[in-house]
């Protein structure tokens, strides 16, 4: 069933954006996973996933940012409360200037989770209604979850 869902999602995105926008589509622990480049992640695609009759991913469960050193990724875990199916949606972005369209415009659940990702990883989310640090102080320097972040023990009072 998951394979059918995966094929369906791929087909819908291809009809919307043309072939070869999806970098990879596979099953991860029996759930569909789709990998997109950040230039192909746009409002129309987000709305397609949210609104399309056969998809209806209305519940955004989790937003995860990852620093892979060569590039960065944000993973959206989507769930459909009506049709009871899941999707891992991965959006890749270059590390030098990590920019990913905000999903906050479609799923309000992304509001805090994207702010957290911005705070801890320094990924910019254009379209977010109030993108600023959330867990760390406003004047904090750097983004701790980046792999090259150096913990300044003196400044933290640990040394």
């Amino acid at each position, binding site marked *: 069933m998951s394979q059918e869902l995966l094929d369906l999602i791929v087909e819908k995105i291809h009809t919307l954006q043309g072939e070869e926008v999806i970098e990879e589509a596979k099953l991860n622990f029996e759930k569909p996973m789709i990998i997109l480049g950040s230039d192909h992640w746009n409002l129309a695609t987000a709305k397609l996933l949210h609104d399309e009759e056969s998809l209806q991913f*209305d*519940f955004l*469960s989790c937003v995860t940012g*990852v620093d892979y050193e060569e590039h960065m990724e944000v993973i959206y875990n989507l769930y459909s409360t009506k049709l009871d199916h899941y999707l891992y949606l991965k959006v890749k972005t270059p590390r030098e200037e990590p920019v990913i369209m905000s999903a906050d415009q479609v799923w309000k*659940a992304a509001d*805090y989770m994207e702010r957290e990702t911005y705070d801890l990883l320094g990924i910019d989310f254009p379209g977010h209604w109030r993108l600023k640090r959330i867990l760390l102080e406003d004047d904090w320097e750097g983004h*701790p*979850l980046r792999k090259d972040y150096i913990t300044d023990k003196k400044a933290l009072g640990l040394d």
Partner: protein
Amino acid sequence: MSELKTETMTLNMGPQHPSTHGVFRLQLKVDGETIKEAIPVMGYLHRGSEKLAERFLYSQFIPYTDRLDYLNAMTNNYVYCAAIEDLLEWEVPERAEYLRVITMELNRIASHLVWWGTYLLDIGAMSPFLYAFRDRETILDRLNEISGARMTFNYHRIGGVKWDSPDGWIEKVQETVKELYENIQEFNVLVTGNEVFRARTIGVGRLSKEQVINWGLSGPIARGSGIAIDVRKTEPYSIYDRFDFEIPTEQEGDVFARYKVRIAEMFQSLRIIEQACEQIPEGDIITKKGKRLMMIKPPAGEVYRRAEASKGEIGVYAISNGKNKPYRIKLRRPSFVNVSILQHLLVGESIQNLVAIFGSLDVVLGEVDA
């Protein structure tokens, strides 16, 4: 007479306000008694849990999960261990799964009891708090007997649980369950029908179905608005598919509906514990490989694992690169997502309702700030 000139005033509620039960600040703009804008400010308790996870061996991170939602630590333990078990593709012994379910459900009741007591305290009823904590203490005694700690249990392990139940523990739990049935029913009779309580809660802080789904709210908040999402049913984990229980929902979506859902959930948890205590088999409590804590090394891969905590859907996104430390652990904390609705929900409300609404979300700040 010329029209009365009014001004908006900025009011900081917190970070040390008693109703937050932690450190949390609300920046309010009020016009008279009406809230015009509410901006939650958090992070006072931020410990960098996700960053710490990358520095430890897989098994060493379990105690840190206790400190997220410290009122419901068993589920936090579970969801982290389950995510790593997924990566390792391990099977967990039957007895361990039963012990996990019993401890998780006992903990859920304890968490709801704390909410019940403190919520009524927040809106002005002193004595229910004492009753709730009396019963919570009985549950914590049971959990202490099996794990050696009252709140930060560190009990679940990757591949099983740490300790087997002491002699006679299951029978003790069965007795506790019987006691709780009566006591919770008593709470229900004492408070639920109370005229003052109803006046404070019915019709206050309404959330529609669409809002709940779009803002990613989960747990009793979602079920209070008529959305029957509960990971235990929608994607049964552990051995939840073996038990007969229901997902209580209410349609109104107000504070009172969330209250009723939590009360009903406690009874469902008792039902699950009863069944688990009857079915629990003898056997191992942890896999052989799981005993070698330092040797846990999942193959490269990633997985997102969810579970139903007392506050809502808790999730762990675990990424392994084949080494003995996690590459990335993302914690989806239900309170963190649930609290985001405040900036929307409080606007236009009267300031008297603020604490009644905020309390009804059942937010734990240790979890919000991670």
